């Protein structure tokens, strides 16, 4: 590991991957906490809107569930914040030439994230967590919604930044810098909309399976039945809707963008070496970049051509007609990441679908097999989300800005950051994140083990002590 760019890449890959584990749940759970808080705040016995038609006891269950998830959310959010800061820093420290080159454009979206999302999230999370009983109920509900909105706005600006790196638009520039030519052009990037939708439904899927999985866990343990049933029901319904959205339209349209705008990435995702009409969809297979072939394949003939263009005999570009210097650094990585994502997505859809059918006559609450499946599905949503991002990021290689700036030319110059220096911080992150990786599950397990407060109270003794005046 003597090449500084290699070290920079590993460090960014490590810190970005580790960081993203937390925002997935922040954005996913934020949605469900906002929903549960909304139902418990606005629900009435005879509300005109059916999902809000809840009795007082049902509203209490929603509130109790929201409180439990808020405790998990708080720890998750804190780790997400501290692991997010290294990413902003690294644009300058390790990717100075990239920042110098692209700052004129992506500076907009990154700064907007800080200004429009972080202020809202952090101030309202403070109010929300101190909440229950301490601030007016209306303000408390508003803060739950603002935390959710803030986290999704934050996601939007990050995806807008990434979309520009995947498909640069609305810029003018020479070889050394790009400048923003049109602000609306930047925000209406054709890549942006579907990538955002696909990413957010992915995060929401994690939220849905977290809610359903926790409910399933309590039911299997024979604890907290009422709240657990609320969680399983809400989680399974949402999971099914989101799994469908994840595949169609968002996944389909996002893949279509890749096929049209990043041919090298698309060919790598499918390990498609030869050009040709009627390309097959590979379900299983191992790519061999030396011999330029896929081995041990199970495939569906013509399906790939059909899925990309709705034409069974569409001609697709294979890797053989793309110069190797423009191939992703690791074609197999892109291929496997993509197939893992799609495979897991399909399995999760099946679990959510079966679960949904079993909601009829409440069979799901007593089916051990189904509850086990729901509980075990939750971690796999993380793998699917991360695999999706690996597909996007490793697939974009060898470019940091697709077609404009190669990753090798984006790193900080050796005159500023020698590789030994970067290696030291990479090792430092490994140690630091190993420690966080141990502490975080420990706290979550503890919160889950304690479970929800069975009888919600107006004052909240179990809430984080920091926000309470001592008494």
């Amino acid at each position: 590991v003597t090449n500084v760019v290699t070290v920079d890449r590993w460090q960014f890959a490590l810190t970005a991957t580790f960081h993203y584990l937390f925002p997935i749940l922040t954005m996913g759970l934020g949605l469900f906490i906002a929903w549960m808080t909304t139902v418990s705040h606005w629900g009435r016995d005879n509300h005109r809107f059916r999902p809000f038609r809840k009795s007082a006891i049902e509203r209490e269950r929603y509130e109790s569930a929201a409180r439990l998830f808020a405790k998990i959310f708080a720890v998750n959010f804190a780790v997400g914040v501290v692991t997010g800061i290294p990413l902003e820093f690294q644009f300058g420290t390790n990717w100075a030439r990239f920042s110098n080159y692209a700052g004129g454009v992506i500076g907009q979206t990154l700064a907007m994230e800080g200004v429009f999302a972080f202020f809202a999230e952090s101030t309202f999370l403070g109010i929300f967590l101190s909440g229950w009983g301490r601030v007016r109920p209306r303000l408390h509900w508003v803060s739950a919604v603002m935390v959710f909105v803030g986290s999704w706005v934050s996601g939007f600006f990050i995806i807008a930044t990434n979309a520009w790196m995947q498909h640069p638009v609305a810029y003018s520039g020479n070889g050394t810098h790009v400048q923003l030519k049109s602000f609306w052009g930047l925000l209406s990037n054709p890549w942006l909309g579907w990538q955002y939708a696909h990413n957010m439904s992915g995060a929401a899927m994690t939220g849905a399976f977290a809610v359903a999985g926790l409910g399933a866990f309590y039911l299997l343990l024979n604890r907290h039945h009422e709240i657990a049933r609320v969680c399983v029901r809400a989680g399974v319904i949402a999971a099914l809707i989101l799994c469908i959205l994840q595949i169609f339209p968002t996944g389909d349209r996002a893949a279509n963008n890749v096929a049209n705008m990043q041919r090298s990435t698309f060919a790598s995702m499918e390990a498609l070496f030869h050009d040709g009409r009627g390309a097959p969809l590979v379900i299983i297979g191992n790519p061999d970049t030396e011999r330029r072939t896929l081995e041990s394949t199970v495939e569906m003939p013509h399906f790939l051509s059909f899925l990309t263009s709705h034409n069974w005999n569409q001609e697709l570009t294979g890797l053989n007609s793309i110069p190797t210097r423009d191939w992703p650094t690791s074609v197999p990585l892109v291929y496997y990441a993509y197939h893992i994502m799609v495979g897991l997505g399909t399995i999760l859809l099946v679990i959510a679908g079966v679960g949904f059918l079993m909601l009829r006559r409440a069979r799901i609450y007593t089916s051990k097999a189904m509850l086990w499946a729901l509980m075990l599905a939750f971690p796999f949503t993380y793998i699917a989300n991360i695999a999706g991002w690996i597909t996007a990021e490793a697939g974009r290689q060898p470019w940091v800005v697709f077609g404009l700036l190669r990753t090798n030319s984006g790193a900080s110059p050796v005159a500023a950051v020698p590789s030994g220096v970067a290696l030291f911080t990479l090792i430092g992150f490994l140690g630091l994140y190993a420690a966080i990786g141990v502490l975080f599950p420990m706290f979550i397990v503890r919160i889950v083990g304690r479970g929800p407060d069975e009888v919600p109270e107006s004052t909240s003794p179990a809430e984080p002590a920091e926000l309470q005046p001592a008494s």
Partner: protein
Amino acid sequence: MTTVWYLFLGAMIATYVVLDGFDLGVGALLRIVGRTEEERGRVTDAIGPVWNGNEVWLIAGGGVLFLSFPRAYAAAFSGLYFGMFLVLWLLIGRGLALELRHQLDNSLWHAACDTVFWLSSAALAFVFGVALGNVVRGVPLNAQGYFHLPLFSILNWYALLIGLFALAALAHHGARFLAWRTHGALGVRARGLARVLFWPQAVLFFLLAWPTYHVRHATLTHLTNRPWLFVFPAIAIGALVATWVFQHRAQWQHAFLASSLFLAGMLASAAAALYPNILPARQGHPYGLTIHTAATGHHALVVATIWWSIGMVLAITYFTVAYRTFLRPKVDVTYGDGD
């Protein structure tokens, strides 16, 4: 337009120093002001709901630097590599210590979190001063606009002095906050500290004028060429005097506000003395970055001016709501240990 963004950036940094400054100062004083585990818990409670929002001013300020002066961002962050990662890791440790402290009700865990919290707070205050010192002193930029400062060159004598001043000033600021916000034995101790800590920062403030002139003559000549800029040091000195007067009258809220004004005035003076440099070269070296050479394109700045203004109105609204919610009851009002 570039000057406007220099002002916006300066305003965000000043807001950060004033807001996060008090919770950094509170952290640095944790062990001195909180004698027992329980008291230290109450000290962290005093900043618990607001510290994260305060820190966002740093993150958003960094984003705005990236937006408006990407060349300066790229050069400063890569050149001060070790300093930046020091800040980064301290921010991570501090954030985790604050947020995870109450997750376990265990005195060993509390002691560990308290130690990480006070050490990282003190170190951050110091390192921010070191960073400011390096910018004022200037960095050895090459013709391509990059530089590399090894760790021990980042910690040069001038930067260390400014670091010391930053620690003194923020500790004082934090003591002012606690003096205003706490009651009982804790409050008495905080007020005593605020009185004592007034002197180191005041003395350093005046003493450091000479070394600052020594490392960069232009800081003074720039002000003397435009005498109206002396209004900023005048504000700082006026606020310093006001802090002392309010403290004498035991008006602790006013004393805290005066201390905030002092920090803002001091930073404004530094910004005025550096203008139009944003990342100056060492005295006598070429290739310094000014706001004109480092700025992004015109269209980007014009559009950003519009959304930034909207964003700031929203942010100020959020902060008003949050601070009104949390500043109402004093921490430990019902705690009956004297007063």
